[in-house]
Structure formats: structure tokens, C-alpha cells
């Protein structure tokens, strides 16, 4: 029975499909620099969805307020840049601090009540933060948004809308996404990660094993907030604008849709769902800019009726 170890470690190995997935992304960006902007948007949405997967997929905590951290992360990077700190890596790292702090402070709101309670409380926090950003227009530029510039990455690779900028931006986002997915992967396979699964699947039994669900939830919510903050900072830096709509309800709702489309709980679902959602939106809205939502809606309805699970299993890399 030496294979118990192999069984426990079966999710740690990098599968061929997984490696191919990342290589395909790199190749895609290099081969199609013209669509790098779109890929960048999809990668960042994927990272944003990954942040939601940590709480929704791994831990079973629903949220309609991830946009709170997305927005705060974006404004952190923007405000830093306008204060003279233009380094993009610094901005991304700095976004972790306030988002993790807000996540930590608001996490206790998630510990009681039903799923509906959690959806509404997280949404309320996001909308209040958005309103706060609107009021503090001296800092945030209010409804006008904040435009800013960032320095080239490592002093060499310009990020932005011109020349190599979109491609570099997409590669930068890809690198950050990879780094954080790597972290999430380690986390999910660690004792802490398994304990989150335990909290999700049976909180009563988890407690009987000595696991205090409340603190685990606070911890993962804090981490998830930081992930979302990094995603927000990346979006702000690669588009060099932060605006109030980052806080809005539809951001939180869309990221949840993306995650559900791709399948929650195995980390890649968000990235795949975001890719599908954004590519389909791009293709359909180029055809019919007024009515594309109809076709997305039809896709969602069909997805549910024909079995989301079955479809997700087709593209699922390794479980």
C-alpha cells in the first residue's frame, strides 16, 4: 500500500495538459500581438476569478463583492503612480496591503447567516467602498477616474497601449497570473488547503477534528482579497486608468459567472471561464454590439440545461 503517498500527492505533479496550457498562452500572446489587449483583459479577469475560486470553490463561501478588492487594488496602484512611484511591480505588490487588510476586517461578516446573507453583505461592502471612492475625489478623481502612467517593467519593457506595450502588458499579466496560480496550487494542496475543503464539505466534522472554521475562513478571505487586489492593480497598470466602475455590481457578478462557467474548485476554472466569456463577448459583440448580451445569455442558459458539469469535465485538466 505504498501508493497512499502517491495518492495523496497526485494533485501536486504538473500534468502535460497543464504545462501545455501555459505554453499555449505564452505562444498565443507572442504569435498574436494584435489581440494582446484582449488576452490581457482575459488573463486579469482569470486572476480575478481565481481569487473568487479560493473562497467560493475551495471554501464554499459565496461572495458578490469581490469588486471591492478589485477596485481598491486598482486605485492603490493608480494613486501610488500619481504620487511618483511608477514601478509596476511595486504597484502590484502594494495593492496586497490595503486589500488584505479590508478583507481581514470584513471577513467576520461572512461567518454568520446564510449564503444569501453573505452575497448581500459582500455586495454591500463593495458598493459602499465604491461610493467612498466617489466621494473622496481628491484622492481618486471621483467619477472622472484616474489616468496615470507606469514605468517600464524592470526598466526595460514598456507597458501600455503602444508598440510592444500591449504584448508586454499581457506577458506581465500572464507572469503574475502564473505566480499566483502557483501559490494557489500549493495552497490548495497544503494541509491548510485541505482543511478549507473540510470546512466547505462538512463544517461540523471539521470542528470535531479541531478545526476552527471561523479563522480558516477569515484567513482565506484575506488571501482572496489580496489576489483580487493584485488583479485590480494589474488591470489599472496595464490600461493605465482606474475608474469607479471597477467597484460596481456587474464586476462582481461577471466574475462569478466566469468562475461558474469554467467550474469552481479546481483553480483553472476561473481562468478558462474568463477566457471563454471574454472571447465570446468579443466575437459576438463585434457582430452585434447592441444585442450581444442575448447570445451570452443563451449560452449561459444552454450551459446549465445541457449540464455545466459535463462540459466542464471535457476541458478540465486534471482533477
Amino acid at each position: 500500500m505504498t501508493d497512499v503517498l502517491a495518492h495523496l500527492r497526485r494533485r501536486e505533479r504538473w500534468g502535460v495538459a497543464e504545462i501545455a496550457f501555459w505554453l499555449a498562452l505564452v505562444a498565443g500572446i507572442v504569435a498574436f500581438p494584435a489581440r494582446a489587449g484582449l488576452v490581457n483583459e482575459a488573463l486579469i479577469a482569470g486572476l480575478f476569478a481565481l481569487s473568487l475560486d479560493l473562497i467560493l470553490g475551495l471554501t464554499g463561501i459565496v461572495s458578490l463583492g469581490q469588486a471591492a478588492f478589485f477596485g481598491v487594488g486598482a486605485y492603490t496602484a493608480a494613486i501610488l503612480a500619481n504620487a511618483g512611484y511608477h514601478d509596476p511591480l511595486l504597484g502590484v505588490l502594494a495593492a496586497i496591503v490595503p486589500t488584505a487588510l479590508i478583507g481581514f476586517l470584513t471577513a467576520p461578516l461572512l461567518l454568520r447567516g446564510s449564503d444569501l446573507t453573505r452575497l448581500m453583505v459582500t455586495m454591500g461592502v463593495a458598493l459602499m467602498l465604491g461610493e467612498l471612492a466617489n466621494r473622496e475625489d481628491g484622492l481618486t478623481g471621483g467619477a472622472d477616474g484616474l489616468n496615470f502612467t507606469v514605468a517600464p517593467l524592470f526598466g526595460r519593457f514598456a507597458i501600455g497601449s503602444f508598440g510592444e506595450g500591449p504584448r508586454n502588458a499581457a506577458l506581465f499579466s500572464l507572469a503574475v497570473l502564473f505566480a499566483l496560480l502557483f501559490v494557489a496550487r500549493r495552497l490548495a494542496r497544503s494541509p491548510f488547503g485541505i482543511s478549507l475543503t473540510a470546512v466547505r464539505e462538512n463544517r461540523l466534522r471539521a470542528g470535531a477534528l479541531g478545526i476552527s472554521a471561523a479563522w480558516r475562513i477569515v484567513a482565506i478571505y484575506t488571501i482572496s482579497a489580496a489576489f483580487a487586489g493584485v488583479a485590480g492593480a494589474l488591470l489599472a497598470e496595464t490600461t493605465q486608468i482606474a475608474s469607479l466602475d471597477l467597484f460596481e455590481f456587474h464586476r462582481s457578478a461577471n466574475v462569478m459567472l466566469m468562475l461558474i462557467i469554467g467550474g469552481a474548485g479546481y483553480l483553472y476554472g476561473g481562468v478558462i471561464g474568463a477566457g471563454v466569456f471574454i472571447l465570446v463577448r468579443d466575437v459576438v459583440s463585434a457582430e452585434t454590439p447592441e444585442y450581444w448580451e442575448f447570445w451570452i445569455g443563451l449560452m449561459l442558459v444552454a450551459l446549465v440545461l445541457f449540464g455545466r458539469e459535463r462540459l466542464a469535465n471535457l476541458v478540465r485538466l486534471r482533477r
Partner: protein
Amino acid sequence: MKAAILISALALGVVPAMAEDVTVGMILPMTGPSASTGKQEKAGAELYIAQHGDKVAGKTIKLLVKDDTGAADVTKRLAQEAIANDHAAALMGFGLTPLAFAVAPIATEAKVPEIVTAAATAVITEKSPFIVRTSFTLPQASAPMAQWAAKNGIKKVVTIVTDYGPGLDAEKWFGETFKHEGGEIIEAIRTPLKNPDFAPFLQRVKDDKPDAVFVFVPSGFGAMVMKQFIEQGLAKAGVKLIGTGDVTDDDQLNGMGEAALGVVTAHHYSASHDSPENKAFVTAFEKANGFRPNFMGVAAYDGMALLYHALEATKGATDGAGLIEAMKGAKWMSPRGPVEIDPDTRDIVQNMYVRKVEKKDGQLYNMEFETIPMVKDPFKATKK
């Protein structure tokens, strides 16, 4: 399988442009809360092309309409892609102020004209030397409203504006002008952007007992304000409702019913404007789309007119600097009346009309009764 989707989708985005094509990237909110702006703008631009042909100075105009859903980061990406992939010679549209701001650095860097046909915060044209505007600025509409009010026996006013950029512009310019003319602002109320109930604000107005209440709300909230204005008994209490033309948006005015009658606003365009150009425009617009043009529709129509004008002047050359030069000082007869691009500010100079909502042929219209000729944006005028 995923890779195949990815590649085919990526490939779709790249459309080779012909040398004799002039692509116009029109970026608008076609879905979401500002979708009505997008619909009007698209219709206005398409009507101009339909009426004047897609050939100008030997080039073929290709209009590329993109939906940015009102999100600034998407606007920016679409602008970048329009320039890099579709080789757009001009960008047009921009439904909200932050969206217009977002594209400014791209316009500057790529040297591509950004023709703003919607967003109305005064400062927009200063964000890039490549921005021109064919819509209007809120100071342009608010200041004349204040002058008219002061001259017509209104002494005390409460202002209600929506709490975001354009609203603050309107509040500031109405207030300062009105005070300059000797009036008094009793209170300046700001309402949240998502606000389904004005009753408490209007109750506050009622308790302030002003002569008039000046209102700026984004188009779409106008009907709500006017109905609740009546319902709260303000009209009976002798308070007048005045505002910018956003409140009595032509697009929606007809459905507003009796509540809108008698509301006085200042704006640059009314579908009832009495000129042959406008009659032809409105008829053609209604025929093509089944709804009435509003100030957004006419701004996009004029945006296209300005581009045609510039291309004729450059004899079809599409370099951005040349186009912008040709646009400066351009003068033409718009459906709204005579207009001109101020060569210093690249903002539009146009007549402002004071109008009152009346019934004409069974329909509601903003009937113009006073004209303030060729108003420049007062915001930029004061800066000199």
C-alpha cells in the same frame, strides 16, 4: 480544443484595411445603463454616412461600432485595437466622461483625432491636443440657463444635480453665473447616481421655498424628476422647474406626459428646432430608426460631418495632425443651427436655446423661444 478557439478568435480581430479606406472607430456604451446614448449616437453617425455617401475625397468611410459597456478599461482597449489592428484614422463616441479621458493618452500618442460626441464635462478637450468635441459642455448649457433665470424674475434657486463629474460642472456653473447675476442659491443638493426616488430631495426643496429648482440629472432620470416634482406639489407651491436639456431629453420627452409641460431648459438642440436642415434631419432620422433624434444623435451626426469636412480639406490625407488642423475653425450648418469648432480649445461653439416644453401636433417638444448666439464653453473662457 481551447487553443483552437483562442486562435480563431484572435485571428478574427485582425481585419486588413485597404489603403483607400478610412476607418472610424466608434466606441460607445451599447449595453448597460448608458445604452440609449449608444443607440442614438450610432444612428446619428450612420444617418450621416447614408445621406452623404461613404465616399469622401476619394476615400471610403468604414464605420466600426464597438460596445465598451461603459467600462473605461474596455474603452481603452477597444481604442488601442481600433488604431493598431483596424488602422482607424479617427475615434469617435465616448458616452461618459471617464471613457473620454481614458482614450486621451492614446489619441495623443498615436496622433489620431478623438471626436467626442457625447461626454460633456468641460475639461475633456484639454486632456489631449487631438480631442475635438461636437456635443456640448455642461457649463455651456448651465450658464445661459442662469442668465435667463436671473432676467426672468427668479431670485432664489435650489439646485439638484447628480453627484458625479457633469453634475458638479452644472452645479458650479449655474450657481456662479446665477450669483454673478444677482441671484441667490439657497441650497445645492447632490443626489446619488443610482437613485430611484427623488421625493425626499424635492421635499427639501419645497421646505426651502425657492422661486425655482435647477435640475441636472443624466438623461433617463428626467421623467422621474418631473413626475415627482408634480406629485410632491412643488408646481402648486409655485416653484418653477428649470434645468439643462438633459432633463427633457427628446428621446424620452414624448412619453413623459403632462408632467413635463412648461419645464424650461437651456440646451443646444431640440428636435423641434425650426430650420430646413433640422426638418430634413429629423424626418430622415425618424424614418431610418423609428424614434426621434436627441442631442446625442445630432452630436454624432455632426461628428461625422466634421470628419468629412476635415477629410475634404486634407484632400483625403489621414494623418491625425493634419485632420485636427483642418477641424480647427471648421464651420458648418448643423441641424441644431450654426456651429463652429473653436480653434483654440477644439470645443464646439454653438447657439444655446432657452426652451419650454409644449405640445405640438399632439406630441411634446422643447419649443425654443430665446437664442443666445454662438456660446463658447465658459469654463475655458474664464481660464484665459
